[in-house]
């Protein structure tokens, strides 16, 4: 059983993936983006260009410390729904994952990085001629 303050790199990565999945399944969430600095994102993009897809790093940031687990994520949201409502759903989803794993929440930092237009084409479909 994990204590909530000690997580191995593999445990953090697994937890990050489960949180990402929970966020993607969340009502109003249309995408999960990389949190972190532009520099680190650029480095990941470079790694991806060299064949290392997604830089082999989780999109969601998870850190474990004395205060518990700190989670940081950036999301895209449905423009028809109030952003703060979607953020609160997302917060609840993260809390649920932490609770299910017996982990103490240290902090949750969620940021809307993109608001999707109300009318969005399916992948592969053009919105306009």
């Amino acid at each position, binding site marked *: 059983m994990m204590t909530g303050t000690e997580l191995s790199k593999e445990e953090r990565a697994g937890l990050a993936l489960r949180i990402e999945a929970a966020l993607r399944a969340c009502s109003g969430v249309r*995408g*999960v*983006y*990389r949190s972190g600095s*532009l*520099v680190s*994102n*650029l480095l*990941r*993009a*470079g790694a*991806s*260009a060299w064949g290392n*897809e*997604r830089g082999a790093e989780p*999109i969601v940031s998870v850190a474990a410390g004395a205060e518990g687990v700190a989670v940081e994520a*950036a999301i*895209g949201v449905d*423009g028809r729904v*109030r*952003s*703060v409502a979607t*953020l*609160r759903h997302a*917060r609840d989803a993260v809390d649920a994952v932490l609770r299910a794993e017996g982990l103490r*929440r*240290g*902090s*949750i*930092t*969620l*940021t*809307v*990085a*993109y*608001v*999707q*237009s109300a009318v969005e084409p399916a*992948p*592969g*479909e*053009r*919105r*306009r*001629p």
Partner: protein
Amino acid sequence: MTDHHEDDPLRRLGLEPADLDGHTIEELGDYLDAGRTPRIPAIEESPGCQLALDALERLRGLGTALMDEEAASAPPVDERWVARILSGIAMDAQAGRRIPFASDDPDVDLAITEGAVRGLVRAAEEAVPGVLVGRCRLDGDVTEPGAPVRVAIDVSVRLGDPLRRVADRLRAEVEDRLRRHTDLRVAAIDVAITDVREGA
């Protein structure tokens, strides 16, 4: 002295490569041409790219209409406003400041990026026919809850459209979107019509 970056189209738009997570405007244009297939995760997972793709797509839709106008022997299009719009798109791709939402839990920090908000404002052009948003600025301390913020928008409109009515419609649309997606205390929305164009 010559700036060795001046030939870089990305920088001409006031955009650094990091703003599009290493991609270029040209790559995004090609990606749109291909109908966003095959899916490129690095683009689809970048909010800056998504903001730029949305705006480029709207601009591209207008470009088609403009070409139709030209084919019908309309006067040549002034391309300066297109450059201004591209410059605005470039600015939107930058995440900018983090705009907080009120939270009753000190361990939970919820926010929206300034770039996402600028994208929202720009997308309001969809609701007002003939309007194209060039630049959008949020003036004021958006990081401080409750601080007054002024929104300044430069727009291009069609020749012959009623200017005041168009500005009022855009202002109302922007106000609605900001109320729906932010906690900003919007003191004013200043719409400046900086271009009047013939055609589409």
